[in-house]
């Protein structure tokens, strides 16, 4: 699940298309697969120039959405790319959600990579099909290909004005040779009809009508409902249980014991006792009446207050060097002015509005699944292993996701449904309560970070030391993992873009005690918080303007060689000029230069590159006499390369400002005795309409650079920008999140 794997998957897909879409496409998606997707079968001369596309003889274009829809619009936006290159009429395009299947390449909708990994493939598929349609029409009319062109679902012959619809040409086009990749002719930007335009998502109307089907809404005939009690401490085995009262609850059918997992926990079902009932309510009521005793586990020692101290102690001592430039120690030894600070970010919970839910039926050696999942192929793997069947016998239907944020890449809840279906011989819907969701998440990690700088007479750093400690999400797959992975460190820690001669990054060990996972923007959250809080501290110490200081520390426009995997680094070099540009843009649009801080009202800035996108945020904060915070305005400047759907991209950054505000203001998960202390939105609050930024203005930098990520990179700069604004407004420096734990006045 390391993000670096995405690079190799991308290579795989790239290779597939460079060899010619049809050949490999045909091998990966047999014609029968497409035929079964279309209404008829053999009498429909359906054809498929690529994995992602079908054209029926009635002119319906079927585009397979192989990525999961959790609110980014990807299920609609990727297909618009294909439709545009195909010159298809969007109204005649039908989107089919793909089942989980390795033939699609990676379907793990995660890591803000759907557009950047599949944009080229979608264009190639669309252009291939368009050229084959043109070839077919030219052949039918007996005219040169050059005299024909595609125009809104038709091929037109320039000289005679003759026209043939795509449907009429489907069978003929299927006999055309698939163009080689180097022969493909793409549309010019001026010819785009959908790319770069605000095409509404295909799900918008259904959602507003209450017809959108999420995982929790899925139904199967004869389905029963399950609610599961799990060990409050990770890995605690069940000692005993008494289900007498539970079984007496009206509507309860039976209880089922799910065995505990064998480490690593991975995506496995946690185990526990399930109550099976006629409806969700009866299952939940029955579950309340269950009496279960648990053994303790090694993780019962987990206490957040103590653990925080141990992390802080770790970062106060030298740790493993993960990046080194120049000689930090020599610079510190000169005895000049220095500044140091410690930061802390607690665990966070994803808390998607739809808690984890899935329906499964295991019958005749096969499993049929309906699930809100970011990763249907992981569902196949996980369910197959849980049931002891082959992966190909797991059919995973992907519903809409009521939020994901990384939580729904981990299909433990789907494994629960599958195991329960096997046990009761009926389709089973598992619905997690909010208490289950917040109490048994794959949490964002907890971290301590230490920074120290030596400063010249202008207050500019001549040496910069940064040290972190946090349990790694790799512990989910390898319990022995006690140091951060390269993937986690590459998210804003080992890729510091500052122009500082002496720089060293270190990372210390930390033991996991709860399930950990990636949450929207992952390790960038704590890295950006610490680094950009510290930059702001240095600017304040130097009595310099925070924007001017940040630009100075960033240094001149240049490309930084991070010795990253070469393909990615070549296509997406770290370009400090692009980071400068978004800082300048955010400052300009927020009116930074003119809005000087006053008591109780100020701006704060932070800028961070993540998921290959450059983002700067200026946040305006008001703190009233009682210490209450309001965020009247956020300006986010974004260079995400080429943007396919500006409205959906803006919405991602509007949402990221709210997500980031939750982390800054109130997000905190703690444990005592290994047990998570929060359970629902009263003690794990998330930003509401009166607490979230009132308005977020998103400023997109026009760019022809390759598309980069947009789902996550808006989050990291928000919490430091808020805290920097709080400092400017109140003089209180927040080094430990969340802000709710501090008195501001």
């Amino acid at each position, binding site marked *: 699940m390391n993000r670096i794997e995405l690079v190799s998957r991308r290579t795989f897909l790239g290779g597939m298309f460079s060899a010619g879409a049809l050949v490999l496409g045909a091998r990966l998606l047999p014609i029968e697969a497409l035929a079964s997707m279309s209404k008829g079968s053999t009498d429909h001369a359906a054809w498929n120039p690529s994995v992602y596309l079908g054209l029926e003889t009635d002119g319906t274009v079927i585009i397979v959405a192989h990525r999961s*829809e959790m*609110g*980014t*619009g990807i299920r609609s936006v990727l297909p618009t790319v294909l439709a545009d290159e195909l010159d298809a009429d969007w109204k005649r395009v039908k989107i089919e959600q793909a089942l989980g299947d390795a033939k699609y390449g990676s379907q793990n909708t995660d890591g803000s990579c759907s557009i950047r990994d599949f944009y080229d493939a979608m264009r190639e598929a669309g252009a291939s099909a368009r050229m084959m349609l043109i070839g077919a029409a030219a052949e039918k009319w007996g005219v040169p290909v050059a005299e024909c062109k595609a125009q809104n679902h038709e091929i037109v012959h320039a000289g005679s004005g003759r026209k043939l619809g795509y449907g009429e040409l489907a069978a003929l086009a299927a006999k055309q040779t698939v163009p080689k990749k180097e022969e493909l002719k793409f549309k010019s930007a001026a010819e785009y009809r959908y790319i770069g335009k*605000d095409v*509404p*998502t295909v*799900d*918008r*109307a259904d*959602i*507003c*009508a*209450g*017809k*959108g*089907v999420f995982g*929790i*809404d899925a*139904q199967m005939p004869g389905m029963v*409902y399950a609610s599961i009690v799990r060990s409050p401490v990770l890995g605690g085995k069940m000692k005993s249980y008494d289900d007498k009262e539970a079984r007496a609850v*009206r*509507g309860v059918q039976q209880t089922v014991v799910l065995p505990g997992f064998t480490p690593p926990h991975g995506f496995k079902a946690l185990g526990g006792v399930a109550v099976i009932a006629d*409806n*969700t*309510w*009866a299952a*939940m009521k029955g579950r309340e009446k269950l009496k279960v005793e648990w053994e303790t586990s090694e993780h019962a020692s987990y206490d957040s207050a103590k653990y925080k101290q141990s992390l802080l102690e770790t970062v106060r001592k030298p740790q493993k060097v993960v990046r080194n430039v120049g000689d930090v120690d020599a610079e510190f030894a000169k005895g000049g002015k220095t500044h140091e600070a410690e930061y802390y970010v607690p665990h966070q919970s994803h808390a*998607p*509005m*739809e*808690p984890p839910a899935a329906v499964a039926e295991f019958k005749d050696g096969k499993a049929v699944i309906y699930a809100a999942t970011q990763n249907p192929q992981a569902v196949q793997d996980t369910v197959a292993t849980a049931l002891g069947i082959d992966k190909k016998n797991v059919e995973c239907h992907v519903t*809409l*996701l*009521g*939020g*994901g*944020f990384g939580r729904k890449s981990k299909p433990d809840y789907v494994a629960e449904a599958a195991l329960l279906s096997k046990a009761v011989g009926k389709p089973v819907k598992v*619905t997690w*309560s*909010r208490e289950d969701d917040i109490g048994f998440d794959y949490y964002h990690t907890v971290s301590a970070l230490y920074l120290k700088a030596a400063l010249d007479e202008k207050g500019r750093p001549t040496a910069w030391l940064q040290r972190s400690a946090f349990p790694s999400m790799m512990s989910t797959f390898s319990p022995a993992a006690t140091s951060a992975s390269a993937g986690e460190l590459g998210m804003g820690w080992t890729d510091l873009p500052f122009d500082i001669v002496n720089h060293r990054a270190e990372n210390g060990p930390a033991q996991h005690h709860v399930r950990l996972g990636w949450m929207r923007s992952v390790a960038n959250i704590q890295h950006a918080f610490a680094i950009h809080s510290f930059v702001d501290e240095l600017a304040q110490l130097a009595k310099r303007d925070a924007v001017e200081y940040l630009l100075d520390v960033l240094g001149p426009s240049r490309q930084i060689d991070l010795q990253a995997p070469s393909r990615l680094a070549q296509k997406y070099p770290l370009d400090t000029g692009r980071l400068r540009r978004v800082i300048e843009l955010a400052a300009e649009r927020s009116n930074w230069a003119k809005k000087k801080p006053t008591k109780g009202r100020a701006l704060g800035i932070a800028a961070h590159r993540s998921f290959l996108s450059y983002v700067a945020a200026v946040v305006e904060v008001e703190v009233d006499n009682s210490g209450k915070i309001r965020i009247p305005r956020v300006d986010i400047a974004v260079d995400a390369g080429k943007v396919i759907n500006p*409205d*959906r991209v803006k*919405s*991602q950054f*509007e*949402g*990221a*400002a*709210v997500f980031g505000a939750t982390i800054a203001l109130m997000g905190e998960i703690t444990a005592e005795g290994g047990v998570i202390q929060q359970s*629902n*939105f009263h003690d794990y609050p*998330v*930003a*509401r*309409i*009166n607490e*979230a930024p009132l*308005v*977020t203005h998103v400023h997109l930098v026009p760019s022809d650079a390759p598309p980069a990520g947009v789902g996550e990179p808006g989050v990291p700069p928000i919490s430091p920008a808020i805290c920097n604004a709080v400092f400017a407004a109140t003089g209180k420096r927040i080094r430990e999140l969340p802000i709710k734990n501090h008195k501001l006045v």
Partner: protein
Amino acid sequence: MIRLKVNGVSRQFDGDPNMPLLWFLRDELRLTGTKFGCGMGLCGACTVHLNGSAVRSCQTLMQGAADKEVVTIEGLHPKAEHPVQQAWQQANVPQCGYCQTGQIMQAAALLKQKPKPTDADIDTAMKGNICRCGTYQRIREAIKSAANKAPASVPTNRSGRTGGEQ
């Protein structure tokens, strides 16, 4: 036996009178547009109209809904063209969309009570509805936009139900 009307249709229920209305709608009637989010009345995803007022269906027991009229998102407008639904589409409010049916029901109740809500009115009425995707600014924009539309486009009967229900 509990009798009630849901989207204008008479329904009856002889199960646990303490079952929240939410689960009757979702599991019995299969009206899944009403969502489960917290089970404690903290998030608003389950908002429906009970005799014309917005309530949390996870906190409304079946016995409390007896002899009352319930309108869910499916019954807000026969063609899903309530001014709030239209405004939601125009502003491209939904991201994942899960909370939006509850948001729409809450906003529709607000506008019935206060046809021209201020920002403070919107905060007060909508702060019980969580959106984890963070669509709040578009929710605010859509409410204001719906408020500026002629409300006469949706006929309303005495009980506050929309005119198109059966």
